[in-house]
């Protein structure tokens, strides 16, 4: 099934950048809310539903915490709910906190989705554009680190038998130094293998299996246009001293709709592909 993650890395990167940057710089409960909903729904379809729902409790607590903490530090706002010493706790500051909480949580959710969608291969592609050597270092690290952890575990397990008299920390340390020694030994072989295949040659390129297709171009254009339209029609929102939502004139509405569309595209894309797949199955 063709899913959102199969878009070209550049298209994906732009999508996530546009949404997160926009929702951070245009601080507004409408944008934050849309962004949060879009991210949450997207996470729900691309990740394990139970895990996402479980995580939501944590994120919700975070949101409430931010919403409650903000009025403790900011005493601006005309509607005083109560006073702590001489500090007024205001409704406006609470609403500001809620917006801030939504913005933070939505960005966290987007990062969560981004991590799911943007795997090491795509990072590799992006690094490869910058420098082929950088991409190689990245790829080698990806291979090396899990291997190092794995061999640490097995060395440590083998050492358990010998250290009844020694402490656990000393075992960890000696196992760790042994693992480093082993990987240095292996590094000699790896560097031989690299040199044998022309690592020292001058003009290195970076191969990736990604192709920038027509659809990638279409989606990238759509993302960019929506972001530009939203950016030129931002709805301003005043919190202090009393909050006044923006007037719902045409420009504001266009701005909100554009950003809403941007935030919901990943979710809608995923759902519509799933429906298309099911339909195509029923035709067979």
């Amino acid at each position: 099934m063709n899913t959102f993650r199969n878009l070209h890395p550049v298209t994906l990167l732009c999508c996530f950048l546009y949404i997160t940057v926009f929702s951070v710089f245009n601080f507004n409960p409408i944008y934050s809310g849309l962004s949060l909903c879009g991210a949450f729904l997207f996470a729900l379809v691309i990740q394990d539903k139970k895990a996402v729902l479980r995580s939501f409790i944590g994120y919700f607590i975070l949101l409430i915490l931010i919403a409650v903490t903000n009025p403790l530090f900011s005493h601006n706002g005309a509607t005083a709910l109560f006073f702590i010493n001489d500090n007024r706790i205001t409704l406006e500051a609470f609403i500001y906190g809620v917006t801030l909480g939504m913005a933070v949580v939505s960005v966290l959710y987007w990062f969560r989705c981004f991590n799911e969608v943007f795997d090491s291969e795509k990072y590799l592609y992006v690094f490869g554009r910058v420098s082929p050597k950088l991409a190689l270092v990245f790829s080698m690290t990806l291979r090396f680190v899990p291997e190092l952890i794995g061999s640490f575990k097995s060395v440590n397990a083998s050492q358990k038998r010998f250290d009844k008299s020694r402490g656990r920390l000393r075992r960890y340390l000696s196992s760790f130094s042994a693992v480093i020694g082993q990987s240095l030994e292996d590094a000699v072989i790896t560097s031989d293998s690299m040199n044998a295949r022309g690592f020292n040659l001058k003009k290195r390129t970076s191969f990736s299996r990604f192709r920038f297709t027509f659809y990638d171009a279409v989606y990238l254009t759509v993302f960019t246009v929506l972001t530009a339209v939203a950016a030129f029609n931002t709805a301003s929102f005043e919190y202090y001293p009393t909050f006044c939502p923006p007037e719902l004139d045409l420009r504001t509405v266009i701005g909100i709709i554009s950003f809403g569309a941007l935030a919901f595209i990943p979710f809608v894309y995923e759902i519509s592909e799933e429906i298309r797949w099911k339909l195509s199955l029923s035709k067979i």
Partner: protein
Amino acid sequence: MKKLSALILIIVLLFAGCSVKSAEDYYGETQKPSDKKVTVSVNCRTAVEYLKDGERVNPDILKDYEVGFKNGETVFDALKTALKENRIQFDYNGSGDSVYIRGIDYLYEFDCGDTSGWEFSVNGKFPSVGCSAVKLNDGDKISWLYTCDLGADIGNKYKGN
């Protein structure tokens, strides 16, 4: 569970020294009579000029308001009492003798550019310490003035350190 109870304990300790009052109770408190008095005024002329689109029209947030004080009270205490009795919002940072006034009547530092904020003078002189470090004397005239230019526009030119 341990973490949660620790968190609750911390929160309780934080609020232990605080008095929580409703807005009505807070503003309903009256000062005890005292024979020593100072005058407090709060003025934001510079902000009215700076914010041209008429966001702020009245430069006088508080005009020569008289408050009583007890021995040892500071400029900060006088401002607090004056604003409280007039139900004017304010916001501050810090405690002890290093209180800093961030905003009065929703007008905050930096609202009128990078060099804007609240300063105060006592009998026309601008002390170089915080408002909670200046003790009150009978008959002092305290002016809180908003500046858009580090004090230069209210007669307290910044002379560097």
